[in-house]
């Protein structure tokens, strides 16, 4: 009888469960929490209160945060608009530009592996008479710049392409995309959520006009984000999507989440200071994980470009093993799967499918998202555990047995259901 439960030893200094899902969210850095704390209690003023010191104090803290964020991305403080998070930032950017520039055109270009906050926003705009081109990606997850050039027409007002993908960590050639857009006088928005604080991102050098930012992906608090909106060359205008008191230069009304904003600012400051060393550290951890897995397991492969990738991302398919059952075997490790056996549709990740992966391989994928607080010992434990469970599950897998027996799985008439 085969047993799936693993006997892998937990190394000294490792506490279970281990968190390796930093693309979903990241833990709050204690330094960020410390900066936020006073703004919940003693410094509780409304940043819009102009008549007393409580308001001034809050406003000053918000302005410091604006500077910290601007500094990280090469912007000026006035170009930072606070929102509730990246979903709102993406909605505000895309809908706000679509509305503001409607007379100039109705065509928007995006790509198939965007986050749903972009794709679903674009789909909604299609209902209101906008045309949207969804660019395909190549097998490595990158868009083809020639496809982009061909898609542009005289009605194109906006190109929205993410800087780094949340599943496969692939970095799009945003600098070149921005250049193409600027030559044609088209606004370039990027969902910068995953790239912020991980690798250098500069709105001037990277030719970005509008960028979405989220605090909780960079060791800040949940429920707060920002939108960078360029003020010159070109000056970008955005129609407000929430009506109210005209906060944030009229683009986003609503009382500011002062503690959250302070946290976002602090998180950006830390990220800017630590980025270089942290990226090197995460690359080392990620490569260690990959090397260990590759040395012990056959039929595994990396999804998405290895060269153009976030340092902390490893998205791997363990072929002939289903992702969800693999997660079940490593239930003391928090990672994600591109398999969708938990969803009603049973459709695997649309991002992995866009790379041209077969559904079977997509069902077998795991996303490891390494972060600032992961250690080498944790990586060693996770690698050992994954190797152990994959081997056990392959003993259980009819597909692995058939392949080992030399049977071509593509020649079998499967009865899909």
């Amino acid at each position: 009888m085969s047993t799936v439960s693993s006997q892998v030893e937990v190394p000294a200094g490792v506490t279970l469960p281990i968190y390796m899902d930093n693309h979903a969210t990241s833990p709050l850095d204690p330094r960020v929490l410390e900066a936020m704390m006073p703004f919940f209690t003693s410094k509780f003023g409304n940043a819009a209160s102009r008549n007393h010191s409580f308001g001034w104090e809050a406003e000053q803290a918000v302005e410091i945060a604006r500077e910290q964020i601007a500094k990280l991305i090469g912007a000026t403080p006035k170009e930072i608009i606070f929102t509730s998070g990246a979903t709102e930032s993406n909605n505000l950017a895309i809908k706000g530009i679509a509305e503001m520039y409607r007379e100039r055109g109705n065509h928007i270009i995006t790509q198939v592996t965007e986050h749903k906050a972009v794709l679903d926003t674009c789909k909604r705009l299609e209902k209101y008479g906008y045309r949207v081109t969804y660019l395909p990606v190549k097998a490595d997850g990158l868009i083809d710049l020639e496809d982009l050039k061909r898609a542009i027409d005289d009605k194109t007002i906006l190109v929205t392409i993410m800087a780094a993908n949340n599943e496969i960590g692939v970095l799009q050639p945003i600098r070149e995309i921005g250049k193409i857009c600027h030559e044609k006088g088209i606004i370039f928005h990027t969902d910068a959520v995953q790239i912020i604080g991980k690798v250098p991102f500069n709105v001037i050098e990277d030719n970005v006009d509008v960028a979405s930012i989220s605090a909780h992906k960079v060791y800040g608090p949940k429920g707060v984000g920002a939108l960078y909106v360029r003020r010159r060359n070109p000056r970008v205008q955005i129609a407000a999507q929430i009506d109210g008191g005209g906060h944030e230069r009229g683009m986003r009304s609503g009382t500011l989440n002062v503690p959250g904003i302070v946290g976002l600012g602090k998180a950006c400051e830390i990220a800017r200071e630590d980025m270089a060393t942290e990226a090197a550290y995460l690359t080392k951890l990620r490569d260690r994980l990959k090397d260990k897995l590759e040395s012990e397991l056959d039929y595994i492969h990396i999804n998405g470009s290895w060269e153009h990738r976030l340092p902390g991302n490893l998205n791997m398919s363990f072929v002939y093993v289903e992702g969800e059952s693999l997660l079940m075997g490593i239930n003391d490790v928090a990672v994600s799967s591109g398999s969708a056996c938990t969803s009603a549709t049973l459709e695997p990740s649309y991002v992995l499918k866009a790379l041209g992966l077969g559904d079977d391989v997509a069902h077998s994928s795991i996303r490891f998202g390494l972060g600032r607080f992961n250690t080498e010992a944790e990586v060693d434990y996770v690698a050992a555990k994954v190797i152990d469970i994959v081997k056990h599950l392959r003993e259980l897998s009819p597909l692995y047995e058939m392949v080992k027996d030399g049977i071509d799985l593509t020649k079998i008439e499967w009865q899909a259901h």
Partner: protein
Amino acid sequence: MAYSDKVVDHYNNPRNVGTLDKASQEVGTGLVGAPECGDVMRLQIKVNPETQVIEEAKFKTFGCGSAIASSSLATEWIKGRTVEDALAIKNTDIVKELSLPPVKIHCSVLAEDAIRAAIGDWKKKNGVPEGEHATVPAAQ
């Protein structure tokens, strides 16, 4: 997803994992599902030609925890039954036993299909017409 203790138990200690000789006259093999759908079950039975009792059952499954548990449970249930009696097992019995959530009912259907496919293969090999009833009393 939170699984029932029974699913976790079958996942951790799958019963009757293995492979029977596909070429044997006494063995029936059922292969159901598809890799693209995220689950493939192979269920095999070894039937006593005299009594038509399933003396051995083996499975291998590519799939989620519920798929593994459903096929593991299926092998336990069919062992010791006659082929006709094994056909009486319904996916709803599996759902109930494993407390599968609605989204996982699919896995139990696959297990029922696997039983039927294995028995169908055995019947075909042995020239037993589909739907013919066993000549010996059910072994329960």
